[in-house]
């Protein structure tokens, strides 16, 4: 590919930081000013297992359905103004997701103007036993246990794939790219690779794309949302602007937002997002490159503009991270509210009473956790002893492998209203629900065991 002109600028806008993020954001990003790409991140670690369950019930399901509404809200920009959309909304069924987008395009009269690149290959659930038989142990990265320990309880298994298949889809003329379990950062890096023709071993440029992706992947969390620094003075959060990366071929970029929007982009807001969910800053590992976050330089570049540059990276590892979801027992959490006077003391007595009753019933759990919300639930003893709190929410949860025991626990909370300590309220929600726990098993897999494919549909 020809080298891009050094003054070329590509604008990637973030329109969704997780499944459940602001429905208004995608449309606002394509209507508020010029953007070239709209990036939408839908997948959290346990989302895949929820989608897998949906697909088992209905083979046309298994993707992030919010994405269809988002596409409908941006069709005019995609069809008339050439904005391209990249989303990992495909979940465990990217093909069905693409079909649903095409159906929506037909309903909106833009069917001929939508060309979708569907990325598959991340889903390894069907190949799991073959992989294990071939000697891929898929040991838990945190505990070292081999997957065999929970194999019979696995619900979904997906490799985190990188930018290469997304770049291929764009090169084949897709204006919408739908993937399954792509890394969040690759959704931003891929269009930059495509536009600037970065070589697949241009580690510094690729690392810059990853850093841009990390800043954008949580939506407004870099543009004033959840920003602790000077939070009182962050203007107009009701109208918050989601972030945009204005990237250049040399790997530098500016983080900004549309004019007239609320929120704030400055060095502190971007720094807070850079350190979010950070591990070893020297080695931010992705399938394409390992980025060094200690190389990042930030500089104010005018109002609501931060220039990011100087980023370096090195070659990636021979592994892909794999996200496996498995059934891990049951849990339930219930709560009651105790009022002044002596709210904390009453809540603590309720806790002793309830635990004694659980013991007498002979119920056994892997964990019983009590918290006193309004006093010590988030900061523990660092917050003091809670004795002067005007009201305290007593919150107790249990988890264990025996569903019946967890179910029995849920019946023990409401009785405290009449047969426990006084000044109690807040039980209107009724008996807590028993939830099946779908837990997350992170593992590494040899890259050579995963091959991706791109299909164009229109």
């Amino acid at each position, binding site marked *: 590919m020809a080298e891009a002109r050094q003054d070329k600028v590509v604008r990637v806008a973030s329109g969704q930081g997780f499944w459940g993020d602001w429905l208004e954001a995608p449309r606002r990003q394509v209507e508020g000013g010029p953007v070239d790409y709209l990036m939408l991140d839908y997948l959290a670690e346990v989302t895949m297992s929820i989608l897998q369950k949906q697909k088992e019930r209905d083979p046309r399901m298994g993707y992030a359905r919010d994405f269809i509404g988002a596409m409908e809200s941006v069709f005019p920009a995609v069809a008339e103004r050439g904005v391209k959309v990249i989303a990992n909304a495909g979940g465990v069924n990217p093909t069905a997701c693409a079909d649903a987008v095409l159906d929506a395009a037909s309903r909106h009269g833009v069917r001929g103007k939508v060309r979708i690149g569907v990325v598959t290959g991340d889903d390894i659930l069907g190949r799991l036993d073959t992989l294990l038989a071939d000697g891929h142990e898929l040991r838990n990265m945190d505990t070292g246990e081999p997957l065999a320990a929970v194999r019979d309880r696995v619900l979904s298994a997906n490799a985190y794939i990188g930018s290469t298949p997304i770049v291929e889809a764009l090169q084949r003329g897709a204006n919408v790219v739908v993937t399954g379990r792509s890394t969040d950062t690759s959704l931003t890096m891929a269009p930059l690779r495509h536009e600037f023709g970065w070589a697949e071993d241009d580690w510094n440029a690729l690392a810059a794309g990853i850093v841009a992706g990390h800043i954008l992947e949580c939506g407004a969390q870099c543009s004033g949302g959840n920003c602790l620094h000077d939070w009182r003075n962050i203007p107009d959060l009701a109208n918050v602007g989601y972030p945009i990366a204005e990237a250049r071929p040399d790997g530098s970029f500016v983080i900004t937002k549309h004019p007239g929007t609320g929120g704030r982009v400055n060095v502190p807001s971007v720094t807070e997002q850079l350190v979010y969910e*950070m591990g070893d*800053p020297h080695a931010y590992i992705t399938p394409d490159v390992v980025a060094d976050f200690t190389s990042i330089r930030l500089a104010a570049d005018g109002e609501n503009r931060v220039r990011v540059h100087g980023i370096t990276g090195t070659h990636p590892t021979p592994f892909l991270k794999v996200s496996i979801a498995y059934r891990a027992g049951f849990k339930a959490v219930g709560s009651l509210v105790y009022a002044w006077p002596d709210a904390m003391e009453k809540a603590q007595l309720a806790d002793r009473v309830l635990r004694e009753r659980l013991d007498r019933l002979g119920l056994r759990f892997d964990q019983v956790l009590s918290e006193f919300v309004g006093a010590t639930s988030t900061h523990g003893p660092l917050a003091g002893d809670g004795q002067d709190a005007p009201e305290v929410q007593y919150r107790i949860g249990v988890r264990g492998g025996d569903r019946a025991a967890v179910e029995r626990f849920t019946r023990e909370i409401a009785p405290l209203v009449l047969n426990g300590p006084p000044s109690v309220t807040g039980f209107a929600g009724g008996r807590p629900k028993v939830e099946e726990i779908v837990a*997350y098993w992170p593992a590494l897999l040899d890259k050579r065991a995963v091959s991706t494919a791109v299909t164009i549909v229109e």
Partner: protein
Amino acid sequence: MKVRLLDIAHARSGDKGDTANVGLIALRPEWYAVLDRHVTRDAVSKHFDGQITGDVVRFELPNLHALNFLLHGALDGGGTLSLKTDAQGKVYSTALLRLIVDVPDAEAVDLGLPAAP
């Protein structure tokens, strides 16, 4: 002089499995040296004593005037296993900002550090 981190730094925290991370960022570039010298791994470990079951690891990011702490065993198993209100470790950030460090008077005066209330 006693200095409270809330008055000289801001922070954001998040999760990876059962580990919470806290990024601690100096409010002024020149205050990064105070964080680097006084917010040691041991100080943070002691601060969260009894609240986390694993080790504390510290990384330095002088380019961002920030430190990154990993608090292992901070989230009751983490993710969907956790029964905690703060299962994703979102507010370990402000819990760390409660930490009060002892800074030599000369250094504190020189850097214009606010005294802990």
